[in-house]
């Protein structure tokens, strides 16, 4: 049986019901969803306010790396049925969901939580997408700190 993998990198709004429908099989009984949104007020560390974020991606490589993340999830948790990985790009305002990782399985105790957690961590490591933060102090590109190995 072919398990569904949904990859999406575009400016469209997230539609959770539609995404869930695409990764729900007759055998599915559980789904873990992680979603990240634009934080308007940062209190931890260097406290500041954010007016909006501007995302850009290297589209073909980003889509291929999102597929790779889904493959890695399937290798580690064979019980996972459907996987959806979404990254929005363009201008996104506080409160708006920007990314989503959803993993479905027959039951909740088969690794769905760990799989979604792994998925967002890997997206932030290897998927070539960047964000510029615009706030009262001006604008600044946010830079990650992970350096993927060749071929990773």
């Amino acid at each position, binding site marked *: 049986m072919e398990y569904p993998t949904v990859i999406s990198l575009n400016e469209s709004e997230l539609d959770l019901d539609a995404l869930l429908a695409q990764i729900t099989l007759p055998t599915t009984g559980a789904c873990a969803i992680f979603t990240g949104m634009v934080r308007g007020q940062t209190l931890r560390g260097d406290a500041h306010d954010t007016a909006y974020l501007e995302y*850009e991606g290297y589209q073909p490589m980003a889509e291929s790396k999102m597929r790779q993340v889904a493959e890695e999830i399937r290798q580690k948790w064979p019980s996972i049925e459907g996987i959806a990985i979404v990254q929005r790009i363009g201008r996104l305002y506080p409160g708006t969901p920007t990314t989503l990782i959803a993993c479905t399985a027959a039951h909740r105790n088969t690794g769905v939580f760990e799989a979604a957690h792994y998925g967002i961590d890997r997206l932030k*490591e290897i998927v070539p*997408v960047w964000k510029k933060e615009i706030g009262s102090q001006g604008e600044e590109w946010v*830079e990650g700190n992970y350096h993927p190995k060749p071929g990773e």
Partner: protein
Amino acid sequence: MHTVKVMFFATLRDYVGAKSVELEIPVQTTILGLTELLIKRYPGLEKVKDSMMAAINREYAANEQVIPEKAEIAFFPPVSGG
């Protein structure tokens, strides 16, 4: 010599002032060699050369990797999606 398309993203695009450029490079040029060529042409890249990453044909590439003909090359800072 052969021609390659080199793309830049995020901060690197700002330093270069273009989304992409086409360059004539000697056969057997490595990513490191191309990086040095680019820094000569766009000195703004000097300060980010240690953190910038390279991809050949949409795969992360090592400094010593030789650039094949008609390759799609991209340079960018560590990713920050999510």
